[in-house]
């Protein structure tokens, strides 16, 4: 009994370590097939024989593993062949006998059988890879690139198969280990508590290590797949080993399609040579010319345009190989915001310059007008000595022209303020009846001088919330125009509420506005023919300015022919919100 248990225990220990050897062997297998695929891809692209030799060297690993399996299937007479196969696939020679024994005794167990099936399927894909390599070898260099899509598809299939193989093997290995550990427990009864403790500790350490790897893998996957920034891993030949989903999306490539491609496909032409130079220098001297903590650069999108990105680099060692990891942060949005901000600053500066210019212009024009109007009025009033009737008339023309110029300056400044968005409304409650009366009082002397009557018809009080000065400016302009163009009859100012709106109108009995000229009424510097010659000339800005003032006040103006001749200018204002 004791002897049986001891034998079982011994078997269990060797079987456990053989299982471990298979798991290690599988990782050699998968790394070698990946390297072989990449080397072959490089060879298809560059025709470099060195890469083909590398391919042959790497593909030997899965081929030898296959040789070992097929030898084991043939029976114990072929154990030497199987051992050579394992050694050729980078397994330590000492592990080979245990691996062969485990395969013999347990490969028909359901869990192990799954792993062996995966292995066989993967080997079929490897065989296809070698056929593709042979084909490439026979093709002329320029035709080889055509094989790339097939190779990439095969690579994707191999990656999937390898994952199955690895998962099945891991599963089988764990189950076998559990079964064997149970046997060990039994044999351990013989060897005493010390052995039990040793075995348990070993099993526990393996379990902890496996869990740590699984946790690390889960963590890596979640970061890799979730990252909002493009992430890429390249080797020292600037070939893309891995690229995360965000990078594919950012640069417009189909998911997974970048793996195996040269980094150059993501670089604008002008960045390729500097990159190669910098990489070579870094590999030779360790020097880092670029700021690895964030450098602004450009990345080439699949559709050919370049987008601004911030790049951050890092490097690390994996299985004795130096790899580089890069993070690409899309700067398109930030750049656009910067452009908008710069444009905003430019417009603000332009606006300030324009405002300053207008202020100066106003000052420079008013200063000489002060002298012109002041002395003309003094002379005309006879303060500086007697003037003849003829001189009085002529001084009147100078004064009239001076005032016209002043009106023009004032209108232009008002307009430029409105257009610059600098005109501010000063809203206050007001009585429209009072406002109309004030305007009428101001212009009635002029109207009567010309034989016209000026009347208001506004129910008092008519309360409204508005900018009194600007409303008065509009009414003064409209009534002033009416006086200027009327030969006879009365002029009436009316106002009433229409729901929430205020409707004001100025009606005259003048000649009206000819159909053809109506569209020009509210255009700047357009003046109608037919104004009275004894009226002061207008600036040509009055109605245009009125319309602008009204639109500032959420209102509008229109002209309509009045019944019985003459014109009616109607102003409508919405109540301020």
């Amino acid at each position: 009994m004791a002897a049986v248990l001891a034998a079982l225990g011994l078997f269990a220990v060797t079987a456990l370590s053989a299982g471990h050897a298979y798991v290690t062997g599988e990782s050699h297998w998968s790394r070698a097939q990946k390297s072989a695929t990449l080397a072959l891809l490089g060879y298809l692209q560059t025709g470099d024989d060195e890469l083909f030799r590398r391919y042959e060297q790497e593909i030997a690993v899965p081929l030898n593993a296959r040789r070992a399996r097929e030898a084991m299937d043939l029976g114990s007479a072929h154990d030497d062949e199987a051992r050579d196969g394992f050694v050729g696939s980078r397994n330590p020679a000492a592990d080979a006998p245990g691996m062969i024994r485990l395969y013999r005794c347990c490969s028909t167990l359901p869990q192990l059988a799954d792993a062996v099936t995966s292995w066989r399927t993967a080997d079929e894909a490897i065989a296809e890879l070698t056929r593709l390599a042979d084909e490439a070898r026979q093709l002329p260099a320029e035709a080889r690139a055509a094989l790339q899509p097939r190779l990439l598809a095969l690579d994707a299939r191999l990656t999937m198969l390898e994952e199955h193989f690895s998962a099945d093997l891991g599963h089988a290995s764990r189950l076998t280990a559990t079964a064997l550990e149970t046997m060990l427990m039994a044999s351990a009864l013989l060897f005493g508590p010390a052995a039990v403790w040793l075995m348990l500790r070993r099993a526990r350490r393996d379990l902890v290590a496996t869990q740590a790897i699984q946790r690390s893998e889960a963590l890596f996957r979640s970061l890799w797949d979730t990252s909002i920034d493009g992430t890429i891993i390249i080797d020292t030949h600037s070939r893309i080993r891995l690229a995360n989903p965000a990078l594919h999306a950012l640069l417009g490539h189909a998911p997974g399609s970048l793996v195996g491609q040269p980094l150059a496909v993501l670089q604008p032409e002008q960045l390729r040579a500097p990159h190669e130079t910098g990489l070579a220098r870094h590999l030779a001297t360790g020097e880092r010319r670029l700021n690895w903590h964030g450098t602004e650069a450009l990345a080439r999108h699949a559709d050919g345009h370049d987008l601004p990105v911030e790049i951050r680099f890092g490097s690390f060692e994996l299985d004795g190989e130096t790899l580089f990891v890069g993070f690409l942060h899309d700067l398109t949005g930030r750049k656009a915001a910067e452009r908008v901000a710069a444009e905003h600053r430019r417009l603000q500066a332009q606006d300030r310059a324009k405002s300053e210019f207008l202020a100066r212009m106003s000052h420079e024009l008013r200063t000489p007008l002060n002298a012109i109007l002041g002395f003309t009025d003094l002379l005309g009033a006879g303060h500086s000595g007697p003037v003849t009737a003829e001189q009085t008339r002529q001084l009147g023309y100078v004064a009239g022209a001076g005032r016209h110029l002043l009106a023009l300056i004032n209108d232009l400044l008002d307009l430029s303020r409105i257009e610059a968005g600098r005109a501010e409304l000063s809203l206050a409650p007001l009585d429209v009846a009072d406002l109309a009366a004030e305007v009428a009082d101001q212009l009635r002397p002029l109207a009567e001088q010309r034989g016209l009557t000026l009347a208001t018809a506004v129910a008092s009080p008519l309360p409204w919330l508005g900018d009194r000065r600007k409303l008065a400016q509009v009414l003064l302009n409209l009534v002033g125009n009416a006086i200027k163009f009327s030969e006879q009859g009365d002029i009436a100012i009316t106002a009433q509420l229409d729901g929430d709106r205020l409707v004001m109108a100025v009606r005259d009995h003048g000649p009206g506005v000819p159909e053809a000229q109506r569209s020009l009424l509210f255009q700047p510097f357009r003046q109608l023919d037919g104004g009275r010659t004894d009226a002061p000339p207008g600036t040509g800005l009055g109605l245009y300015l009125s319309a602008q003032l009204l639109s500032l006040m959420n209102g509008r103006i229109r002209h309509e022919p009045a019944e019985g001749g003459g014109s009616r200018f109607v102003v409508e204002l919405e109540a301020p919100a």
Partner: protein
Amino acid sequence: MTTRVLLVEDNEVNAYLARYVLEQSGFVVEWVADGEQALAAAARQRPDIILMDLRMPVLDGYETTRRLKADPALCGVPVLAVSAQARPEDKARSLAAGCAEHLDKPIDVTRLADQVRAWLK
């Protein structure tokens, strides 16, 4: 009793105009061409009222008015801005500096004397 007006104006022709109009109305006018001279003249002899141009060399009208208003001996003298700077913000600025009123250029020669008299007690 004579009323003394200190006229601060850098443009000679416009100074002559205002001075002529005011003297015609019986005021005694002292004319200076910038803010520094205005401060010196006011310190030498306290005027009854000051007409102040705003845009001037050496010391502008805003700063001159602020200094006059900071002087206990002169802060009671009304300062009327008379300026070709006629934008609402210019007016707000001159009133903030301490001016009692802001008269636009061109001035109305028929009303200037009355506008000055309105500020005299």
